[in-house]
């Protein structure tokens, strides 16, 4: 269980996050939604432990800042793509924490092979990471997170750069983690997708949490409208699935 209490983060004179109080349960998929600049990425980095903060974030009772005892996988929105590195080498980096940097156990090698198969990258193992398409790159990132065998995975906009088909493929891959009991926290632009996959949604706006609760409730709440300045329409399909779209005429 991750407990966030009175979290605030400032960059110089700018307040990025203000007095955030939430709880995130283990084994569930929680999605942070909100417009650009709401502070989602910063929040994610604070949960990772690489961003300093005032207030408290605890994971199983321990503060997360610079706490290397956790096993957290991080999938950034804009990864640094090493030149000349093959896909298998890249994915294998995920085992570094377990094996110790520079070592490679047989178990690791097997696991990497397995995960490459699952994510459909096995045939591309010798290709350069820099040559992958957007969708393939994202799969490689997920694969790397998977081989880490993490307890918590943080994903920053995992689908923003992908086409429709790949969006679903990647999200399905991530959902596999739930079977293994991994806690998933992701930021997403696309609330429709968030509603499709996440059990819990946290709505953020200008550094504050407007709303946090089960997806169904949040989707149909007025605070969601507020966060997007009443520029969205929420429809429900016959199957019961919600679809959120932006309003076309923005005269106000």
């Amino acid at each position, binding site marked *: 269980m991750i407990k966030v209490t009175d979290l605030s983060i400032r960059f110089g004179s700018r307040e990025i996050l203000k007095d955030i109080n939430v709880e995130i349960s283990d084994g569930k998929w929680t999605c942070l939604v909100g417009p650009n600049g709401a502070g989602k990425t910063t929040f994610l*980095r604070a949960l*990772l*432990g*690489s961003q300093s903060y005032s207030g408290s974030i605890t994971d199983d009772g321990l503060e997360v800042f610079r706490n*290397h005892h956790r096993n*957290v*996988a*991080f999938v*950034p929105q*804009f*990864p*640094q793509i*090493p*030149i*000349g*590195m*093959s896909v*298998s*080498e890249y994915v*294998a*980096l*995920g085992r*570094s*924490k377990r094996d*110790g*940097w*520079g*070592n*490679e156990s*047989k178990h690791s*090698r*097997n696991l*990497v*092979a*397995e995960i*490459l*198969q*699952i994510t459909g990258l096995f045939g591309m*193992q*010798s290709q*350069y990471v*820099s*040559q992958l398409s957007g969708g393939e790159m994202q799969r490689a990132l997920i694969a790397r997170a998977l081989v*880490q065998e993490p307890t918590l995975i*943080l994903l920053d906009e995992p689908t923003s750069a992908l086409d429709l088909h790949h969006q679903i493929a990647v999200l399905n891959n991530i959902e596999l983690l739930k079977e293994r009991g991994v806690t998933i926290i992701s930021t997403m632009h696309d609330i429709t997708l968030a509603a499709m996959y996440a059990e819990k949604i946290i709505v953020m706006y200008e550094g504050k949490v407007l709303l946090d609760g089960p997806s169904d409730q949040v989707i149909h709440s007025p605070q969601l409208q507020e966060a997007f300045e009443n520029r969205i329409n929420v429809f429900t399909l016959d199957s019961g699935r919600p679809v959120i779209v932006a309003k076309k005429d923005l005269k106000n």
Partner: protein
Amino acid sequence: MKLKGNESALSPIWNWKITALSFALLFFVAILAISFGPVPLSFQKILRTLFGLSGGLTGQERTLLIDLRLPRALLAALVGAALATSGAVYQTVFRNPLADPYLLGAAAGAGLGATIAITSAGADLYNLLPIFSFIGAILAVLVSFFISGKFFAEPNSLLLSGIAVGSFATAVQTYLQQRNSSSLRPVYSWILGELTVANWQIVTWSAIYILIALTILVTVSKQLDGLMLTDDEAYSLGINPNRLRVIAVIAATLATATAVSASGLIGFVGIVVPHLVRGITHRVTNRGLLTIALVGASFLVLADLGARTLLSPAELPIGVITAFVGAPFFLVVLRKKRLVTQ
């Protein structure tokens, strides 16, 4: 989940046989280098002398081998290893395949130091030239760190500071040379790089500094792979990227500064050798750092052999050879890795 098809068809990330092979390569190349030169020496006698057996070389020939060829080959190996390794490290730290050990103004700083030594008191300060160029290189890098301010370990801002510092140092050097035209030739030939008269004294102190730096680098080499990712990714994989960068840059700079003060500015080794090794092994992991060091050593020992023998009795500046050999190799490797048609 069970695998379908070939299990474990992945090749290991690093094959340590390659490292062993590069040790052997260096040994072989070194023996080759000390066996050739304008004065013909019997190969058998060379081996006997090296292993302390009877029937070896005597008199002038022995002095030639022990006091001239051997220190020179050793210095070439040390400098080659230093430049290749620090080039590889800089390429990782700055996430830039074109980085070389002279980034961050080290070369310009060393050149300025050398020029100050040469123009200050002529022959008297000439003996202190290595110290001056060493200090110059280190100072330039420190100033680069200082200028890049609170983002001091952030790769891009360090790079830019280095360019600024380098330009400034070069400008001052040019001014000094203009006012002391008698320094032009010595500085120029120093810049070209020369191992012409290595002696055991130079070899000793270079070895100390370079080996310390290389040991540090090879020890942290395993973690350096993490620096190729964003800082957050590296952090999630258990690394402190800022600290690692600082350690790596300091050690690499120490190696570079020592190499430069011993042998002038020898180019291309720091850029070409890392890519050569990565191209041949199809791996960019920094587990290969030790191999890069050994191949760098072999490369320079061979280049120096060429410098001594190709135009005998004249000496080719070693920088010319590394460029001539390095450039085509480099292009071949770049094309193969398709970095050019990215």
